């Protein structure tokens, strides 16, 4: 029987985490194991998780330090792999899966593989915002032939990359390509990872599998929004994307990214002190080139 492990990474989201876990446990095709990685939360997350102690399919993994979303996903996916998972379904701690999200994801992936006649390295859900509209932050990038399976009557779109909000990886993708880069800490870890594994073929977005991403505002990453409060996230984002474009695409791609960054910051009237800090992060990205770690086979 196919063994699916759901991996939820959480940090200080005690108010939403319970609902996230409950929605995963209430799937009409339940995951064989649910792994919750607590990134050393300092709020009452521990109390929320205490309620799941002793649940046979739930495993809580408490980290001693906050490793970021990237570190948490890398850790949780490695653990799921060691525990013998055939598929690993991952999500953030503010993602509410609809009751059939996993079943439709598994079935859609299986049908797409049969239709394409090849193994496909991931399947992701459609991510909605709280009002039912598309969540701008979690739109996958389609391939040039994205409608190939749609015209065959399947509710599936071919994609190059997606975010870590309800995406499922088959075990072989981890065996061949390793884990997400924990060193990215936060932002662009999902883009790097899904682009890395699409060397084996396109991913798919299964249109019938839906989840809700409970963000405060429905807005994608926009460099015009940089301010002192959110600067720390953009610093990781700029360093990581510059690193990816330079080392895994080509230096011209990194320069195009610099141009896009510059235009966005100028368009948003971002203060020069913050622009200079992001420029330094872009340069740091050129020297920053972490290598993937591979999970260990245990079961």
């Amino acid at each position, binding site marked *: 029987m196919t063994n699916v492990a759901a991996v939820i990474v959480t940090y200080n989201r005690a108010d939403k985490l319970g609902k996230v876990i409950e929605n995963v446990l209430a799937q009409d095709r339940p995951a064989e194991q649910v792994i919750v990685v607590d990134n050393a939360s300092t709020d009452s997350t521990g109390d929320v998780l205490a309620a799941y102690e002793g649940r046979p399919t739930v495993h809580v993994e408490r980290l001693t330090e906050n490793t970021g979303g990237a570190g948490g996903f890398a850790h949780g996916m490695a653990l799921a792999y*060691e525990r*013998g998972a055939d598929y690993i379904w991952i999500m953030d701690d503010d993602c509410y899966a609809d009751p059939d999200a996993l079943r439709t994801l598994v079935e859609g992936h299986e049908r797409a593989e049969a239709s394409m006649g090849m*193994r496909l390295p991931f399947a992701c859900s459609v991510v909605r915002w709280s009002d039912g509209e598309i969540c701008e932050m979690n739109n996958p990038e389609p391939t040039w032939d994205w409608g190939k399976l749609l015209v065959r009557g399947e509710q599936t779109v071919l994609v190059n990359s997606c975010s870590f909000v309800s995406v499922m990886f088959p*075990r*072989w993708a981890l*065996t*061949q390509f390793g884990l997400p880069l924990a060193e990215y800490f936060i932002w662009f870890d999902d883009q790097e990872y899904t682009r890395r594994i699409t060397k084996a073929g396109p991913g798919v977005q299964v249109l019938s599998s839906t989840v809700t991403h409970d963000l405060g505002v429905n807005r994608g990453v926009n460099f015009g929004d940089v301010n002192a409060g959110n600067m720390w996230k953009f610093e990781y984002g700029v360093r990581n994307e510059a690193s990816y474009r330079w080392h895994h695409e080509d230096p011209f791609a990194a320069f195009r990214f610099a141009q896009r960054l510059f235009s966005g910051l100028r368009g948003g009237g971002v203060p020069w002190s913050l622009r200079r800090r992001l420029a330094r992060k872009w340069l740091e990205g050129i020297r920053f080139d972490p290598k993937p770690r591979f999970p*260990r*086979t*245990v*079961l």
Partner: protein
Amino acid sequence: MTGVKVYELVEEPDWFSVLSPREVRLLEGALAYHTLVRPGQRVRVTALRTDGPHTPSLTDQSTSRIEWPDDRTVVGTIEAQATGMPVSDVSAVDVVVDLGGPPASLLRLERPPGRVHEVRSAVRARVPVVFDVLRQKRTDRLENRRLSQPIPRVGRPQTRGTGSAAGSPRAVLFGMHWLELGGAEKWAAETVGMARAAGLVPIVLSDRPSGHPDISRPVFDDALVIPLSHPMTGEQESRLLSDLFRRFDVRGVHVHHCTWLYNRLPWIRAHYPGTSLVDSLHVLEWRTGGFVDIALRMSNVMDAHHVISPQLRDYLVDRQGLPRDKVTLATLADLTVEPAVGRAAEVPTRSPGEPLTIAFVGRFTQQKRPYLFLRLAARLRARLGDRVRFVMHGDGELASEVRADHARLGLTGVVELRGTDRPVTDTLTEADVLVISSDNEGVTLTSFEADAHDVLVVSADVGSQASVVPEQMLVPRAPLAFLSEAERVITRLADDPDLAARLLLSQRARVDAFAALPRARDWTRALYERWAS
């Protein structure tokens, strides 16, 4: 004579009494081969033996020459013919079968002949760690190359052959490496017994030169065993297989570690498409590719691959893209010991002041790297003094190098050397820690035995050892890193008996989870029952 009769003697000679049971079995195998490949002809066999270190020559082309080296003595002559065939009146065909030297003489073959091996052994004997550093670097390079290059595959079969002889006795054709029952062969031998228990006639072909010391084991009593020696003629090879498929309804071929039979699977599939073709795989060999690569090459003509470790499953399915339903993971966790049976519920803790006993159990071979254990012992002795003691239990081709190293490193009186005349359980009963220094393994059966004796296993992180050894006790394969990391881990265990107790619990959890995976015995029994039905 015992076994399955495919030939009859023209006259029973009285000199059989001078042969050892092993030699009788070897001669029976040779008689079966030579009569099967010459149906309708009488075969006159001259049987030879020697005291020297020579492996038997039973089926190769040299058997058709009626001359032999001076150190061979004639044991006797015998005439036989295949059963079920009218025998022609023409004179008998002459065959000379060399039963080889006694197995003890073959053990003295510590290294293969040749200048390259001489230099290699000399370097290893003098500077074993440097030798091993270079060897492991080469392994790393080969591993990377192997993972980046596709393995060629044979074409899928298109033909429809005639099938094997329905109505004849149902049989399984086994391919074995040799009849020396180490890890993989121990399992192969057990499957021979399981086939018989399922009502199938076991036919065993072995591939590699050996004295076949275990051919006289009871498990082979009712089997047709033919230890092949190479090269045979192509005509005889196909006649041997055709005649076996004509005399028996061969329901399945189960290849253990047998290159010769693997390479003939496409031919078997072409002519006998109704016969199931499966194999059992034990270990990934990065340096040579080994049997796993041959299995991949032949996979298109095979029905199933049985693997004994999760690592092999992931390699075949995830890395090499074999269909998931074609690869079955079924472990040998219970082959030598039943995990968790006989284990005390309480975790034993060492009393303070009691020395930590550290053991090495295994063959003294390059793969097991006994020289690393000796150096680890020297380091730990220098660091911990009388708080540690060591037992090294085994024998093998590096025995003289181990003894020389033992003396050179000043370990006399520190590391107790034990031979194979003492039972392994003695050592495991005394030990607190078992060190596995191998550079390659599948899942070591010794790890299960150690766990059953509440012994902690510190192991090189190779093969599927991670399946049974907790992460804190896995150390790198590279020799220098192995030594420093193993020294660090064992020092912590010596300093902190509570840590040792906690790790033992964690080890038990891993072994139990592994033992809960499907068992090879169950998978094989079900397979043979299907074949027998």
